[in-house]
């Protein structure tokens, strides 16, 4: 049964400055969000990839008021492509330039010195899951599925199974994605995807039969279906059909 929903979604298409060099600078951009209420320590913000910046407020809204056991709270997250790193690594890559080409050998010394030490961690696909778990204290069953539409469906299946079997008493299920950056926009352009890119995150809090004995699976499924369906909502924020 869905007991809470949190979402961070763009409200309009805007001209986004980093995309200015591309055929379309329009993107569905979230303004902000303000992360301070959702972080244990303000300095944690420097570790967050954009999708995690969107996910934290969405997950926080869905969890607001939750007072159950965090050991028995599951976390099931769908993400899209790996976060890009070219902006962060630009200085490092620029240091490899020689005669207008990239000289890989220069990366071992000049490039390395400028390479951001935290970058590998910012670009792992599971960083949305990791940051939501750390900031919310979630310690139960979890999975991060990457890829296409099946990732969004897969996290529902996994959460549903964890609740129905009693491995979790509640589950935070969601998706987060951002394609509003130069690297993603360039790849989309190369792939022939001309619609404006977007970004967003949505999380729902589900509780299982252990919490609401009257909520059997059939009723739960009907309610999920009545929401829109929520799978489509997940698709809208990044896990798009191929």
């Amino acid at each position: 049964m869905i007991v809470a929903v949190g979402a961070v979604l763009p409200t309009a298409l805007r001209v986004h400055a980093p995309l200015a060099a591309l055929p379309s600078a329009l993107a569905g951009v979230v303004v902000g969000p303000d992360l301070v209420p959702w972080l244990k320590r303000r300095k944690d913000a420097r570790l967050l990839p954009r999708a995690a910046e969107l996910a934290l407020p969405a997950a926080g809204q869905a969890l607001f008021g939750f007072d159950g056991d965090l050991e028995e709270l599951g976390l099931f997250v769908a993400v899209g492509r790996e976060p890009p790193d070219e902006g962060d690594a630009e200085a490092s890559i620029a240091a490899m330039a020689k005669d207008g080409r990239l000289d890989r050998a220069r990366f071992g010394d000049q490039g390395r010195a400028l390479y951001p030490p935290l970058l590998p961690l910012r670009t792992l696909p599971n960083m949305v899951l990791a940051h939501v778990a750390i900031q919310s204290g979630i310690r139960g069953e979890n999975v991060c599925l990457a890829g296409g539409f099946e990732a969004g469906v897969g996290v529902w299946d996994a959460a549903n199974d964890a609740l129905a079997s009693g491995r979790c008493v509640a589950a935070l299920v969601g998706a987060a994605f951002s394609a509003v950056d130069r690297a993603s926009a360039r790849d989309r352009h190369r792939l022939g995807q001309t619609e404006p890119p977007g970004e967003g995150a949505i999380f729902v809090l589900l509780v299982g039969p252990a919490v609401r004995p009257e909520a059997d699976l059939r009723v739960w499924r009907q309610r999920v279906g009545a929401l829109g369906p929520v799978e489509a909502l997940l698709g809208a924020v990044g896990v798009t059909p191929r």
Partner: protein
Amino acid sequence: MTERVVVTGMGMVSPLGIGVERTWEAVLRGDNGIGPIRRFDATGFPVTFAAEAPVEGQGAALKAMLTELALREALAQSGVPAGPRLGVCLGSEACRPPWPWLWNQDAPTPAEIEALAPDAPTRQVAELAGARGPRSTVSTACTSSSQALGEALRRVQRGEVDAMICGGVDALSDPLMVVGFSKLGALSTRNDAPQHASRPFDLHRDGFVLGEGAGMLVIERESVARARGAPVLAVLEGYGCTCNAWRITDSPPDGRGAREAMRTAIYDAGIQSADVGYVNAHGTSTQQNDASESAAIEALLGPVPTSSTKGGMGHLVAACGAVEAILSVLALRDQVLPGSRNLDEPDPACRVNLVRHSREGRLDHVLTNAFGFGGSNGALVFGRP
């Protein structure tokens, strides 16, 4: 009670060789698969060695080759039929883009871009195996393929499919990875002696070694497997996973999350802690992981024999959970506990019963761990058929 889920096929490519049996024999002998980097000119790099698989290629093409080799071996052993009752769940990360793309020097084709995505190996396996059932890709760094096996187990138990191809693939001998992880201080820097660089649980360990490889398993409902006369290699009895909710790179010193993942897997298997005869540890050769994992094993399982097979093959990251699951199945099959290469002086802070050299033992149930950057923990329990 749900029907048992059994392993009917296994395939592997590791730094120790192509094929399950070749790798297993090398592990038991204590062979070394770590050497100077061949994939690129690493002159001037802070780390100049890696655990590279004996396969030619680069980037996405290399991953595709590793995937196909491991898959074909697993399918040949299992003989699992194609169709809508066969699904795929793999652990995988994205591939790094080739250098020229970073500077827009060569425009990649759409197919080349798609080949970098984390789910590219999953799509590849589904196509090659004719698997038309559900498919998914787990991306939780070093825990990816352990969780992929767990998610596959759940799909079979739920009755969504009769069989799943599950496993993982990774290829990390790449300039960006070498520089990135060395700047994090996670890699061993024994450039003068790479064969001694990966030394899990040793007092003088100084980091992990980036590796390459793939492991694929076919798991099935036992009744279906036996009805078609498939080889039943082991039972996948239990799975547990947790979040540390601690820090991105570090594990809690008391190993709390790892301990709970193991406890959950043992409970899921329907056995007692004392029934576990061997633990194939995650054992990365980093100070933090080995100490934290040791604390977890000691607290939950006491003096259970434990080893890490990363001493000879490095850290295969998204593939390590599947590769080490296969080695655990082989330990059950042959009733042998693989040793920990380079364990010359066990760290007294790692208070576990470490297996230094491969030896015979009585095994009914084995447990294998995988823990990832970001704090996801996975544990799997296998039993004799």
